[in-house]
Every structure is written in C-alpha cells, then in structure tokens.
C-alpha cells in the first residue's frame, strides 16, 4: 500500500520527497539485455540531439501515477523514448505500431523476436 500524493493542490505524483512510504525494498536485479538496449537508445538518441534528458523526464512525469507501480523502470523508459522520438519527428506512431505487429509474428520470446 503506498500513499499517493494529492494532486488537487498541484503537487505532482512523481515529486515524492517527504511522502510517507514503506520500507526500502533492498532486492536488486541484474539488467536484461532488452533493458540495457533501452538505456543505450536513450543515451545515444539524446547525445545525437534528438531529445534531451529533460524531455525524457517530462514524458515519464506525465504518465499516470499507476504507471510507477504497474510498469518497470525500463518499461516506462522505452515508452518515454518512443514518445520523445515521435515528438522529434524521428519516428511516427504508425511505423512503430506497424513494426511491433511484424515483430510479434516472429515468435513468442524475446530471443526469437529480437533476432529476426
């Protein structure tokens, strides 16, 4: 159970400093290849000037509060990277969706779909 930050007074949910919360979950996980690829795409695309880390953060903050609980860190990052690339005019939502459908045809696992 987590406390949500009230937004009626303009306090945005991602701005968490000082909110009540439970114990710090100390478990860690090693990053999967797809997660490292998301990280790499963010670093490379921002270095190439397509968007800024500020734009990345802004898109993350504009997601609903539930996204922090329901999506993992790099799931939210790839959503933000995609949005920023669309805003930059590098990709369109249509071509992302079209390619995602094609990828799903390749196989059931990341290993199958990524190597296709």
């Amino acid at each position, binding site marked *: 159970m987590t406390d949500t930050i009230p937004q009626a007074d303009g306090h945005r949910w991602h701005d968490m*400093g000082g909110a009540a919360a439970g114990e710090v979950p100390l*478990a860690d996980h*090693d990053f999967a290849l797809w997660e490292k690829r998301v990280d790499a795409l963010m670093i*490379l695309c921002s270095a190439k000037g397509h968007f800024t880390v500020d734009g990345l*953060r802004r898109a993350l903050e504009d997601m609903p509060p539930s996204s922090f609980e329901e999506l993992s860190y790099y799931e939210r990052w790839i959503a933000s990277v995609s949005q920023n690339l669309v805003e930059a005019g590098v*990709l369109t939502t249509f071509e992302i969706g079209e390619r995602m459908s094609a*990828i799903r045809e390749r196989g059931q696992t*990341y290993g199958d779909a990524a190597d296709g």
Partner: protein
Amino acid sequence: MPHDHHNHLSPSGHPFRADNDHPLSYWQTMEIAVRELLIEKGVTTAAEIARQIDAMDNRTPANGAAVVARAWTDPDFRAALQHDASVATSEMGFDIGPMKLIAVENTADLHNIVVCTLCSCYPRNLLGLPPDWYKSRAYRSRTVREPRRVLAEFGVTLPETTQIRVHDSTADMRYVVIPARPDGTDGWSTDDLAHLVTRDSMVGTGLPKSPDALA
C-alpha cells in the same frame, strides 16, 4: 551481432536473467521496433548500440572505489577533487560528460547520503547503473525526511553527534560520497584500499569495510 549473454555471468557475479526465454512483452516489442527503425533510418547502428552497452557494462563501482582510494592517499588529488571533481576524475579517465560531479566527504562529524527525489539521477560513470532500491518510491520519498530511519534499514546507525547531510540531486550535479578511511589501513596500497570501498558507501547508505572484514 548481439552479445550472447547466455551462460555468462554479469559483472555483479549473478547469471543474466533468462528474459530471452520468457514470453515477449508489449514493451520488449516496442524496444525491438524502435531499435530496428532507428538503425534502418541511419540514426544509429547495431555496432554503436553494442558499444554503448559494453561501455555501460564496464562502468562499475570499481571506478568510484579507485577515486576514493586515491583521495585517501593523495592529498593533492583530494584537494583537486574538492575544487572540481569533474576535472579531477576525468584526469583519471572517468568522463562525466555534460554533468558535473561533486564529491562530498564523510568525516567523524558528518555523514553524506545522496538521493534523487524527482527521478533517479546517479553518478553512472563512477558507479554503473543505479540499483533498484535507489529508484524506489520508499527511498526517494523517505530519505530527505527520515534519513536515519532509512540508514537503519541499510544497517547503518550513526550517533546524534554525527550530522547527516542529504543531497537531493535535483539538477545538473551528480554526487559521489567519499567515505571516511577505515582505521588500521596505514600504508595500504590504493588497490587494497579500493577493495574496502563498497558501492553503498559511495551513495551514503553504507560504510566502507573494515580491514577485519577482508581477513
């Protein structure tokens, strides 16, 4: 050619997650799509992406530990680190890029701890990727308000006479904590000293190991 992570250990010594065999998720599909499209459009290449992953994999807390060990043994470097940590660490080969580094020293009277309440800013070039707990709601929410209770959860209890200083990494600075040098290490080499420096001690959620711990 993508790296084959099967059967290898990650830098932390754990096996890579077997995500390659799990059912493909919507977000994994999006990553593949975005990566392929960017390569096809000439924005990047598979080789460049692989190089970036390698570069990030090679950034581990050993980088930060080397900086700490040198600060402990080289007074000129320690002074340079306080004057401009970005310049001092880049001369060791650790490039912070567009960010600026600030090194905050622990003493007997002062303990520093770093958090990013707004997101997950972290000195990645010195410590690698941030751990899950650093990005958690609980750490981001509570560290600025009750750092001593948070530290207790990490097994660290400090006397009231030690001031705790919480650094909220809100903008362009990145922070590395220089822990206090453990007693009983006179004359140690920087390599041996670096082995005492844990990742958590450079974030401020832990203390360096004592010489007894290595015995």
